[in-house]
Structure formats: C-alpha cells, structure tokens
C-alpha cells in the first residue's frame, strides 16, 4: 500500500519541480514559445492514471499531464528540450511544449484541437484488435485518454467516445474537471450537475472522485484500468479539483475569486503532510526527494541549454514521408 503512495508522491513532486523550473524560465525569457502550461493541482490524478499503464498500452495525455508523461517514461530532459525547441527534442523544434509525444511507444502527440485524440485512441485499440495484438482476453491492452471539463463539449470528444463505447473497447477516459476552460467557469460550459452524468449516455461505467485526494485518484484509476483490462468495456473517471495556476504562464488567472482558491489546497503539499503523518516518509526523505528532482531538473536544463537550436538550412521543408512524392 505505502509503496504506491510513495511512488505516486514522487511522480507528483517530479512534475512539480520540473514545471516550476519551466515557469521561472518563462518569466526570465528563456522559452522561445508563447507560453508554459502548468498542471499545478492536477499532478495526482495525472500520475495516478498513468501509473496503471504498462508497455503496450496507449496513452493520450493533454496539456496538464506532465506528471503522467513522466510516469510513462518521458524525462525532464525530454520535456525541457521540447520547450526550448532543441533539435535533440522529440519534436526537433518543429512543435513546442504540449504537442509532443512518443507515438511509437503508444504515447500520442496531441494536436491543439481538443477532443481530437479520443477517437484516435479508440482507433488505435481497434487497430490492435485487427492485428491480434489487443492482448489476452481478460488482460487487454488499455487505452487511456485525458480530457478537461472544456474539452468534454467538443464534437470530436462525443464522436470518439461513442465509438469507443460501441466497440466496447478497453478505454479509460480521465476527465479532469478543474472548473475552468481557460477563463470560463464550467457553469458556462455544461449544465449537468457533474460530468459523470454523461457516462450513462455513452454506455460507460462512470465514477466521480475528489481529484485533490491522491489516494482517491489512485483507487479510482486502478479500478477503472483493471476493469478495462479485464474486458468490462470503457470507463470514465471524473476528478473534480481546481486549476491552481493560470491557463498558461501568460495568464494571471485574476478571474478566479480568492475565496474559491482558498478552498483548494495544493495537493503536493497536503499529500506530503499525509504521507509523513502515515509514516511513509520522514522529513529527511522528503527533503532528499525534492533535492533529487531539483538536481535532475537543473542538470537537464543545463544540458538542454547547451544543445543546438534547429538550423533552417537543414530543414527539408516537406510534410510528406514518401520520398518520391516529397
């Protein structure tokens, strides 16, 4: 029991440390792109979900899944390289920050258009079935996709999720209802009480959880992924929490009332307190853990900064992989 709790906390801290560093880099002008997007307050759900996956599973993270990405094998160095637009980064400077992925390993590179990855994960799982690679019956390869309260209202989400349900795929939809799409509160984006009320309409099993409680996140994710793996069909988890940052670093989120903010503690801090109380971690171990990730991030940043930016003269400037047609 405490094993996974420590691992979960480690994943949360690792993401937090990395993002804090990217945030300060943004403020000092060290990021060539438009913004840096933080997952503050959402680390637990993101990490807990990704921790249920294994090689061969499909993962479709979104904008606030730094924690899940790290769990899946991305390193801070990978993330920093992409943010700096380095040739060594997986996008080779062509794409920045959030649109990165490792599609060969089943980790999708999202496009900005929200909702678009849902049907893609469904298609991937259908493809595995076609190829006889869906996994042993009762022990299926799972597809897990993130979506926000905002993205839930896209047509793409609707079509993709419905297909996942019709095909009875081992699909897990992790809905992070952080109450905001950019500056817009969810009373302007949906009219049901909880987004979990959408599950039945697709024929999914849905659960609603407190996304600020890492243990609740863990339990729900473990259960949903296990059910999907076992062949019970698609699952939906709706985690309610609050985005504890601006939409991106360019946004001060002054539209979020202080009173609301005051009701949502920082899950990384509260979980540390809980774990220390429960004896999973003592002060020294906690300190060592933070230090470990700070050094890791510092080293990664130093390395990435020393690496080259793309050279336009080396770009082939074609969008086709077929040589004969490019």
């Amino acid at each position, binding site marked *: 029991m405490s094993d996974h709790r420590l691992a979960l906390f480690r994943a949360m801290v690792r993401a937090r440390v990395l993002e804090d560093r990217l945030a300060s880099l943004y403020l000092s002008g060290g990021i060539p792109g438009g913004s840096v997007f933080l997952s503050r307050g959402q680390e637990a759900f993101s990490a807990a979900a990704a921790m249920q996956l294994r090689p061969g599973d499909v993962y479709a993270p979104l904008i606030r899944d730094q924690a899940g990405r790290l769990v899946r094998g991305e390193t801070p160095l990978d993330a920093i390289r992409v943010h700096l637009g380095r040739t060594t980064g997986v*996008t080779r400077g062509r794409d920045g920050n959030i649109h990165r992925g490792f599609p060969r390993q089943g980790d999708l590179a999202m496009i900005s258009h929200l909702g678009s990855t849902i049907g893609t*994960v469904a298609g991937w799982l259908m493809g595995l079935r076609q190829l006889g690679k869906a996994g042993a019956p009762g022990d299926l390869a799972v597809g897990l996709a993130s979506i926000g309260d905002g993205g839930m209202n896209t047509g793409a989400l609707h079509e993709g999720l*419905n297909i996942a349900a019709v095909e009875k795929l081992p699909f897990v939809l992790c809905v992070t209802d952080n109450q905001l799409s950019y500056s817009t509160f969810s009373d302007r984006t949906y009219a049901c009480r909880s987004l979990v009320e959408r599950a039945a309409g697709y024929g999914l099993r849905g659960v609603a959880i407190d996304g600020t409680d890492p243990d609740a996140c863990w339990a729900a994710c473990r259960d949903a992924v296990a059910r999907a793996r076992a062949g019970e069909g698609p699952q939906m988890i709706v985690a309610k929490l609050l985005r504890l940052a601006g939409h991106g670093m360019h946004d001060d989120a002054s539209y979020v009332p202080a009173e609301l903010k005051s009701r949502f503690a920082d899950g990384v801090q509260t979980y540390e307190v809980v774990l220390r109380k429960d004896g999973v971690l003592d002060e020294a171990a906690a300190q060592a853990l933070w230090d470990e990730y700070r050094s890791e991030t510092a080293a990664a940043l130093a390395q990435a900064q020393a690496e080259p930016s793309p050279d336009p003269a080396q770009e082939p400037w074609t*969008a086709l992989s077929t040589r004969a047609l490019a």
Partner: protein
Amino acid sequence: MSSTYIEAIRRALGDALAEDPRVFLYGQDIAGTFGGAFKATKGLAERFPGRVLNSPISEDGQAAVGIGAALAGCRPVIEFQFADFASVAFNQMVNHAATHWWRTGVPVPATFRLPAGGTPGGGPFHCQMVEGWLTSHPGLIVVAPATVGDAYHMLRDAIACDDPVAYLEHKHLYNHLRIDTDPSRAERLPLGKAAVRRAGRDCTVVSWSGMVHECLKAAEPLAEQGIEIEVIDLRCLRPLDTATVLASVERTGRLLVATESWPFGGVAAELCAWISEHGFSHLDAPPRRLSAQDTPVPFHPDLFRAHHPDAARIAAAVVETVEF
C-alpha cells in the same frame, strides 16, 4: 472478365484485405449484406469477417479512428458516405493526419475514400468535388482516378502509401465506366504521375476525375475541325505532376484546365499559376480555366447541366484558346 469503376474499387478493397492483414474498412453502412451506399464493399463483410465495420454517423470520429489505427500499425480504409460529409472530418484530416509525420516522424498510413462529384438530381450536398479544400494543407496526398484501371491501382497504392491519402472516386463513373479486362492488369502508373490520355499538338487540356471524359469527348469534334488537343489526366492532385503538364505546354503553347470544381482557387488555379510562372515563355495564349458555376450544385438536372462544364463548353474554350 470486365469491370466497372465501382467494381474495380471493390476489387481493390478485396485484394488489399486478402493480401494484407493490416487492412480493415470502417465506414457508414459498409458492412452486412448492404455493402455501402454505393455497394463498394458489397460481399466484403462476409468474405472478411470482423474486418469491415460499420461506424456511427461520426465523420470526425471515423477519421480519428483511421489515424489511431494507422498509428497502431494498420492500413485502415475509411469510407465517407459522400465526399460532402468529409467537411465534418476536415480538422482530423488536415490538422491531425496531415501534420503527424512532420511533427513526430511517425507516418499515418490511412486512406480516406470520398465518393465525390456531381450526378443530376444530387443537389448541393451530394455532388461536391472537395479537392479545393483538401489540397489546402501540406501533408495530405489527394488522388482522383478517372479510369477503371486507376480506380483499382490508385486505391491499392493509396493503401500502400505511408502518408495519409484522400481518394476521390467519382460517383458518376461508378457504373458508367467499364473496361473489358481485369482492372488489376490495367496499366499501373506510380502515384504522383499524370497520364497523357490523348496526344495532340495544338492545345494541352488538363483535367481529372469525371471531367477527363468530357475532355476526351471534346477531342473528336475538335479533331474534325483540325484541332488536336492533348488530354492530360492529372490522377494525383497533391502533389501535382507539373513536369508532365509543362512538357506538354512546351509543345502545344496552350493550356486549358477543365474542372468540375468551383471557380475560385484549388487545383485549376494552382496549375494555371504554376504553368504561367514556370512555362511563361512557352505560352502562346493565355492559360485558361473552365470551372463549374460559382454556386452550390443545383438539384434540378437542367440547372445541374448548366452548372457543370461539358464537352461542348470545353471544345468552345479550346477554340478560343487556339484562335487567340
């Protein structure tokens, strides 16, 4: 063995399914005994159980499935019921499928079948030629076979291609075009190559899909008037085989592009602009375009016929070009 255009499509799908376990078909009403709105998949669901799947009315979702399955290692063929409905899948096609290789280095070998083009009585939402907008973004290959042999080979090539391909099949040709041989034995040109369907010295007339046959029809009365047109079938719209067209214009000095599409932009404009720039000194007359009228496609057959270019109008435009 003889084959219509639609039979060649069915044959290509069947052969691809038989030869390559990565291939599967996904689309509205394509499975069961029904076999699709135009019967392109008739019999395939029975022959290949579990590999011909009906989808909900969800074109964005269908395209997304194609992308995901392609990433998983498959060669999915996505059928849209009419090309007109692919407008709903536009984002997935141009922003997701078409950008993926460039962004990640991982290609998306999905094929999108689009029953396109006008038939009298079809009206504004069942007659569109859609290459105008499908060619707008980089990263998508767009093909439009005009012959039974190409219907077969280009579909096989589309499925074999690592990049996403939009395959525009012309609904009017489905049952109107027939050859007396096995389409898989018909001549096979590579993707990206245009075909000279008729040689001629006086004017290069370029078209694709259904309009190729109107151009060929125009050739005969023109020949009687002593005007020999060279008819080029582009076959592949993105990328364009500008070299073949340029070589022809070098000889004829004249260019007419005939299209069933709307007048603004698109492939006809691209080709005329390209030839004007790169073949300027070879042109003895203004490069011309003949397009459909600048309105949605009308329902009533009389209006429909007036909306679309045909052999008579092509011939008239050629005469004007040659007499310039």
